[in-house]
């Protein structure tokens, strides 16, 4: 594995290895989390394969010329609003000699000009200007068969659903609505039930493979065991009354929970003798958790994942999208965009901002996630011959299940393995 000489990568991972022998995908070889060659293969087969990658919220780029620089997998891309209002996505790499064209993270510009030789592009990524194309005083220039049409920025398919913008490198990806499927669309329709606007961003750099985070957000088992905040302050549910739901591909999952009574809580904890149950503490400022639930949202928590990189979070009144960006085999970035509904009043916005304390890099019930997956990464790099054990709830992929299961994780790996092994 991982043979790299003089900058050349030699593929030595056999198809059998990529299709590792675990029928229910209830075990994953640890090398999938740190191997450079597998990382490069998944850039092509997963992120640039027949999937839709979340790249923006429509309202982040409301006006013609608005753009946002982002990534699909680890490929830099630009999402731009065109003159007629349509959204376009293109690779941020000049068609001439490869320089990064767009040099700001966001802004407004009706053209994108590469500074190196001033090749300029329109908002769809079409080449519109080439200096000295016909030479200077009859000397030099490009040959007469040069066309701008043949030298645009690489374009991605772009589509939106419920205000979320997705991009795909692949002509084979089904139309976005079909890719999302009925189950995922139902939950997106629920959470994004009316227009939204961003309240701000949080970013985390985590020293772990992106798939460890993809597992984490599909793992209903860890919530009450790793995140002790709710239990410590008597807020919580050891195993909230909730369920997991997934679509047939396995890639898109939803973990959702509703409140149980305090009595059920106490009983559940004392039965399990879990370290997280402590009765004596209460929040000195309980306003953190005050705030009316949204009339259209009846869950206390919903973590919805859209394969491969999107998470849609509803924790109490805190709403956010999270985008996973791989940064090499052992590192990832997590960008959360907290949002509110456009029609929310000031009080509701204020509640959402306060409850943002629950999530993100300093989140009361989320900070442990980055830490936990780093602990995995630190350890498995020395265990390449070993594999994980993902058999909670069996080895199947139930489309509906309770919370004491790793079924959604198996769903993720099923989807991933299909993409990594499919005939190209």
């Amino acid at each position, binding site marked *: 594995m991982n043979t790299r000489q003089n900058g050349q990568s030699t593929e030595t991972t056999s198809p059998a290895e990529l299709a590792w022998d675990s029928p229910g995908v209830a075990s994953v070889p640890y090398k999938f989390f740190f191997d450079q060659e597998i990382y490069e293969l998944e850039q092509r087969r997963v992120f640039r394969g027949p999937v839709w990658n979340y790249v923006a919220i429509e309202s982040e780029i409301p006006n013609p010329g608005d753009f946002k620089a982002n990534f699909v997998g680890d490929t830099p891309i630009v999402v731009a609003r065109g003159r007629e209002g349509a959204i376009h996505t293109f690779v941020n790499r000049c068609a001439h000699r490869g320089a990064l064209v767009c040099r700001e993270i966001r802004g407004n510009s009706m053209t994108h000009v590469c500074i190196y030789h001033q090749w300029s592009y329109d908002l769809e990524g079409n080449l519109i200007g080439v200096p000295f194309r016909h030479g200077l005083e009859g000397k030099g220039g490009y040959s007469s068969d040069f066309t701008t049409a043949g030298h645009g920025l690489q374009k991605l398919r772009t589509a939106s659903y419920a205000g979320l913008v997705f991009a795909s490198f692949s002509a084979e990806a089904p139309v976005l609505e079909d890719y999302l499927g009925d189950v995922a669309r139902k939950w997106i329709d629920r959470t994004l039930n009316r227009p939204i606007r961003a309240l*701000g*961003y949080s970013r985390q*750099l985590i020293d772990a493979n992106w798939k460890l985070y993809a597992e984490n957000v599909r793992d209903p088992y860890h919530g009450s065991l790793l995140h002790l905040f709710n*239990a410590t302050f008597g807020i919580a549910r050891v195993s909230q009354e909730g369920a997991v739901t997934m679509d047939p591909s396995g890639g898109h999952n939803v973990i959702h929970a509703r409140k149980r009574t305090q009595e059920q809580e106490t009983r559940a904890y004392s039965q399990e003798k879990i370290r997280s149950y402590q009765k004596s503490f209460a*929040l000195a*400022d309980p306003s953190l958790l005050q705030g009316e639930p949204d009339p259209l949202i009846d869950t206390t928590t919903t973590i919805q994942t859209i394969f491969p990189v999107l998470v849609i979070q509803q924790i109490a009144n805190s709403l956010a999208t999270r985008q996973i960006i791989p940064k090499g085999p052992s590192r990832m970035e997590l960008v959360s965009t907290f949002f509110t509904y456009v029609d929310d009043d000031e009080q509701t916005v204020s509640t959402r*901002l306060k409850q943002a304390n629950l999530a993100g*890099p*300093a989140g009361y019930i989320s900070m442990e996630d980055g*830490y936990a997956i780093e602990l995995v990464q630190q350890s498995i790099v020395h265990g390449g011959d070993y594999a994980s054990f993902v058999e909670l709830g069996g080895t199947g992929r139930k489309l509906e299940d309770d919370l004491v299961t790793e079924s959604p994780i198996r769903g993720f790996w099923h989807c991933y393995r299909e993409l990594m092994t499919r005939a190209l």
Partner: protein
Amino acid sequence: MNMAANNGNARELVEELLAAYVSAIDDGDLERWPEFFTEDCVYRILPRENDSLNLPLAVMSCNSRAALADRIAAYRKANLFAPHAYRHLLGPVRIRDEGRHEVAARTNYAVFRTALDPIDYGTSEVFSVGEYRDRVVVVDGLARFREKSVVVDTCKIHTLLATPL
């Protein structure tokens, strides 16, 4: 105390408050952290990215001294994170506004985080740089933060932020 009577001492007052504040954090004496604030304080860690876009989202925010105490209670009893230590370095205090009852000051800060876990033990990194935007008042003869906004240039936070800045 009347702030105006302290005109000449405003800088000194803020400097001393800041020095005590960062020592308490760097020494791990976090139970003292809420004491540096007024009861009705505002504390928030605001990414510079959001500040520059006029977006209000803070990665940590507390709207009362009680909420600060909750942060520390959770830190001690609930939240889990790699063991680490902070070291703050502060730049010169710039007094922006000196009212009758309140001083507004800005101070650059850098926080180095040193890992104390078994894998990276003893490794220091520049964890966070940015600016303190403080509003300081005197209550019962003691300077306190009425408002402390930590505007963080390092908006891409390495792993997590448990210990306050």
